[in-house]
């Protein structure tokens, strides 16, 4: 097939399951979309989703979005690419989205070839690479040790555009990828069709959050057309605009460095990019570069169990307590520590608690510029222990303190306002991100597994 002079990318939303107006997808197809790409995951909602392999999004929300996108891709005869399936991009996440796609495909008689790319990694497979010195830390973490890898409940490698291209070349109509870089999802098809890497990767970075790069991020998706010299971008909603400022400013969003961004194969360099208004809602970008790295690397993400948690919540309105709130909180921690030692025989090093005074200084803690006595306060006690039974027991020992603890020197027992009965909720296992490392690889696809249907309908 001859290389086209340009490639159009339709990104319907910043996240699969976020929802969008179906008319915006119709508009994107009318603009000549050659591919539909959407991100299905992120680390941004915390380690629980990777740690458990569960999705943040509701199945019905993902189903609703996919029904529109699959029909659009089928009608237009263009591929649909979903990255970081199921929030964490675990194998379970890919299978979860694939199950939804298969249901829709069967119900609506779409007959699509669906490729799955698995990016989950086993610790034992990474250990030889670690021993060979091929796993390196990214700041601020230090060198990796084997025990940290083995603690992880799930590890994923972030795939670049090559495994997606491999699936497309094998005839996939729909590509469901495990953990992928946000940009790879949009960059894969234009790169495969011969578009230059500088404009392609920069465009892919700008569209990855959907409407976030527009003047009204609530209106959904964007459309970008990449050519040999740059790219042009506009919102899918006709009443929303992209401006040179909204596009340039998007390089700041959730990035540590606004000028350079590392991908598996190299670095996106946008310091020299020029942003010009084509009209009052369309922007042209030229001058972006992609610097190929000497070593191809795959970034690892991993989550491990930190303990088992129970959360308790009580409200305080009494001005006498609120006037000495920090004294009360300190007294509670002291009495609780003593009671746990006596009743459960547990040393303070065997469990942890985080006592949060919502309404006073819970969110910023020591960074709070000027905490003042609040009108009321929500006290959250988060307990972490080695097992759930212990975390629950500590919380039950805390219960009468959260209900009645006086200030030191008070001659009577006050009673505070529990919000629910029981006042505690067991949270089960809690997780923490423990990997921020890259693996040197010899080929871009060696850590990933491509699964194609055995009997393609095409």
């Amino acid at each position, binding site marked *: 097939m001859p290389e086209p002079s340009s490639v159009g990318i339709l990104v319907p939303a910043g996240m699969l399951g976020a929802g969008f107006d179906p008319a915006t997808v119709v508009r994107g197809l009318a603009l000549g979309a050659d591919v539909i790409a959407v991100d299905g995951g992120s680390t941004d909602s915390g*380690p629980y989703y990777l740690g458990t392999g569960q999705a943040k999004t509701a199945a019905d929300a993902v189903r609703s979005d996919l029904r529109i996108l699959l029909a659009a891709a089928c009608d237009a005869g263009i591929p649909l690419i979903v990255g970081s399936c199921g929030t964490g991009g675990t194998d379970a996440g890919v299978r979860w989205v694939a199950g939804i796609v298969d249901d829709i495909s069967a119900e609506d008689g779409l007959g699509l070839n669906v490729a799955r790319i698995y990016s989950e990694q086993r610790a034992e497979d990474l250990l030889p690479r670690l021993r060979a010195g091929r796993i390196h830390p990214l700041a601020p973490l230090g060198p990796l040790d084997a025990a940290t890898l083995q603690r992880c409940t799930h590890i994923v490698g972030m795939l670049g555009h090559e495994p997606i291209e491999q699936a497309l070349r094998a005839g996939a109509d729909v590509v469901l990828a495990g953990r992928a870089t946000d940009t790879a999802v949009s960059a894969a098809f234009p790169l495969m069709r011969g578009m230059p890497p500088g404009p392609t990767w920069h465009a892919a970075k700008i569209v990855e959050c959907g409407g976030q790069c527009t003047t009204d991020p609530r209106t959904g998706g964007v459309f970008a057309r990449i050519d040999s010299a740059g790219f042009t971008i506009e919102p899918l909603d006709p009443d929303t605009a992209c401006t040179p400022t909204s596009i340039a400013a998007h390089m700041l969003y959730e990035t540590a460095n606004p000028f350079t961004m590392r991908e598996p194969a190299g670095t996106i360099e946008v310091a020299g990019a020029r942003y010009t208004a084509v009209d009052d809602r369309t922007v042209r970008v030229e001058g972006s570069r992609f610097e190929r790295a000497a070593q191809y690397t795959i970034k690892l993400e991993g989550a491990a169990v930190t303990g088992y948690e129970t959360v308790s919540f009580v409200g305080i309105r009494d001005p006498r307590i609120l006037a000495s709130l920090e004294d009360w909180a300190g007294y509670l921690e002291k009495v609780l520590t003593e009671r746990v030692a006596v009743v459960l025989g547990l040393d303070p090093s065997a469990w942890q608690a985080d006592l949060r005074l919502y309404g006073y200084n819970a969110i910023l803690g020591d960074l709070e510029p000027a905490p003042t006595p609040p009108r009321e306060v929500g006290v959250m006690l988060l307990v972490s222990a080695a097992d759930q039974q212990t975390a629950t027991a500590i919380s039950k020992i805390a219960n009468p303190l959260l209900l009645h603890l006086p200030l030191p020197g008070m001659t009577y027992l006050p009673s505070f306002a529990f919000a629910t009965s029981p006042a505690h909720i067991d949270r089960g296992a809690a997780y923490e*991100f423990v990997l921020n490392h890259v693996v040197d690889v010899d080929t871009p696809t060696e850590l990933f597994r491509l699964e194609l249907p055995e009997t393609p309908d095409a």
Partner: protein
Amino acid sequence: MPDPIPTPQTLDDLALEVRCKNAGPFWMTLDVFLPDDAAYRIADRLITVDVIAELYQVTPESLQIFRIPQLRAVKVSFPRPLVQGSLHDRDIHAGQHHVPLALLPIPGVT
């Protein structure tokens, strides 16, 4: 009679937007967008390594400051003192950590 255009008292008064988010689980990043070149110059002078290190109780060496006059924006990134989602992290997206910077007084304002 009240002044129809109140003098900005804080960076938040001066800026279009002061925001904070995670940049991955191990970093947080602050973005300040200013409405014009004059406001940018004030913010550019105000936001220094020492000021941010004091406000956020982090070491000066851990800070990266990006000054982008074309966008009238200043960006500050540093490793999260608490890893996202760990027991003592009370702001999973770091979405409320713009406040200490936003409330920074503008010097010379009485």
